[in-house]
C-alpha cells in the first residue's frame, strides 16, 4: 500500500468534485423545474394535459440513465445539426431523466396540501399558476424535502456516469490517476470514502428535516 498516491494527486482529484457538484446542481434544479410542470400535468383533469405528461414520466422511468446520456450525445446532433458537446448533452439528459422522478415526488407533495387551501386561493380570484407558486408548492416543498434530498444524493452518485462521454468529474479523475499510477486499491478506497462522507452528510440533513417536520406537526 502506498497512500502517498492520494496526497500527491489530491488537488487534481478533488478538483473533479467541482464538476460533480455543478452537474448535480444543474440536474437537480432543472429536473425540479421541469418536474413541477410534469407534476401539474399528471394532476390535471384535462386529458390532453394528463396523458402526454404521464407518457413522458413513464417513458423516462423505463429507460436506464446511461442510455439517455448516449441518446443525447449521439443522436442530438442528428436533430440539432451540430454536436452539443459532452457537458451540455449530458446535462440535458440528466434534466430530462430526473424530471420524471421529481415529477412523482412533487406530485405527492402537491397532493399532501389540503384542497381547502386551493379553494381559498381560488376564491380570491388568483389564477392556477399563481396559486401553485405561492400557495401550493411552498407547502408541498416542506412535505417533500426529505424525498428530494434522497433523490439529490442519487443524482450526485449518478453524475459519475458522465465518464462515458468523456467528462472528467471526480470518479473519472480518480480513474485517470489509476491508469497512470496503477494504485487501484488505494485510489478506489479513497473514492469510496469521499462518496460515503458526502452522501452521509446529505442523509443526515434529510433526517434532520424529517424530524423537524414531525415535530412541527405534533
Amino acid at each position, binding site marked *: 500500500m502506498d497512500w502517498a498516491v492520494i496526497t500527491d494527486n489530491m488537488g487534481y482529484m478533488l478538483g473533479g468534485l467541482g464538476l460533480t457538484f455543478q452537474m448535480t446542481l444543474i440536474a437537480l434544479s432543472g429536473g425540479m423545474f421541469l418536474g413541477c410542470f410534469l407534476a401539474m400535468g399528471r394532476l390535471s383533469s384535462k386529458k390532453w394535459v394528463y396523458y402526454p405528461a404521464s407518457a413522458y414520466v413513464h417513458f423516462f422511468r423505463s429507460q436506464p440513465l446511461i442510455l439517455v446520456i448516449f441518446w443525447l450525445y449521439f443522436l442530438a446532433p442528428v436533430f440539432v445539426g451540430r454536436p452539443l458537446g459532452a457537458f451540455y448533452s449530458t446535462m440535458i439528459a440528466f434534466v430530462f431523466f430526473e424530471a420524471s422522478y421529481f415529477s412523482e415526488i412533487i406530485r405527492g407533495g402537491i397532493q399532501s396540501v389540503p384542497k381547502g387551501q386551493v379553494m*381559498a386561493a381560488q*376564491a*380570491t380570484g*388568483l389564477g392556477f399558476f399563481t396559486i401553485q407558486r405561492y400557495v401550493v408548492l411552498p407547502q408541498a416543498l416542506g412535505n417533500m424535502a426529505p424525498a428530494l434530498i434522497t433523490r439529490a444524493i442519487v443524482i450526485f452518485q449518478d453524475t459519475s456516469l458522465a465518464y462515458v462521454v468523456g467528462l472528467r468529474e471526480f470518479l473519472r479523475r480518480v480513474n485517470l490517476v489509476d491508469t497512470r499510477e496503477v494504485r487501484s486499491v488505494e485510489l478506489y478506497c479513497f473514492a469510496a470514502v469521499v462518496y460515503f462522507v458526502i452522501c452521509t452528510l446529505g442523509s443526515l440533513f434529510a433526517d434532520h428535516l424529517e424530524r423537524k417536520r414531525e415535530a412541527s406537526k405534533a
Partner: protein
Amino acid sequence: MIEIRNIGLWYRKGQKILDNVSATVGEGSTVVICGPSGSGKSSLLRCINGLETFQEGEILVNGISVQNPNTNIYRLRANIGMVFQHFELYPHMTVTENITLAPMHVLKISKTRARQKAMELLERVGIADQAAKYPGQLSGGQQQRVAIARGLAMEPALMLFDEPTSALDPEMIQEVLEVMVDLARDGMTMVVVTHEMGFAREVADEIIFMDHGRIVEKGNVQTFFNHPENERTQQFLARILR
C-alpha cells in the same frame, strides 16, 4: 345583486345535491342559510363564485352569469369574498402576507399599498397587533378574523360565509360574529351559512332553510322564527333553539 335561478347540481349520476334552488340576494342585504349537515349549503355557496360547476339553471352576480364561458371568472371571484369553516389561512405566510397576496397578484396594487390596506383591515377586525405572526400562532377566533380581513382586502361587493363559527371554541364565537354584524350594518351584501340564530335575528333580512338539496322555507326573521310552515323547519328550530 345575486340571482339564483333553478339550480341543479350533481357530483355523480343519480345523486342530486341541489334541486331546483332559487333565491335572490339584494344589494346590501344579509341572507342566512341554515339546514342540516349534508343538505347542500356549502355546495350552493361554491356555485355562487364558480368553485363548483352546476348542471342546471343560472346564477347571476351583478348581472353577470357565473357559468357563461365568456365570463371572466377570476374577475368575478375577485369581487366575491369567501370565508370558510376551517379558516384556510396559508400556514406558511404571515398574517399580513395572507391578506396581501391576492390584492398584489389579482388587483396588481403595490406591496406598500397592499400592506397599508392590510393594516387598516386588521385594525378593523381588532387584531392589528398580530400582523407579523403566523396563523398557527393565533387562536381560532383570531384566525377567522384574519380570514375575513383577507376576503375584505379585495374590496368585494359581496361576502360568502360558510359556517364561519362552527369550528370555534364557544368563547371565541362572539368576537367573530361581532365583526360580521358590523359588516352587515355597514351595508355589505352577505350570504351566511350559520346556525347562530342570534346572529340571524340581529342582522338577517332573509332566512333560508335547506333540506336534501332543496329550499324548504324562506322568509324574514319574524315569519321564520314565529310561523315556520314546513315541518322540517319546525323540528330543526326546536332542536337548535332549545
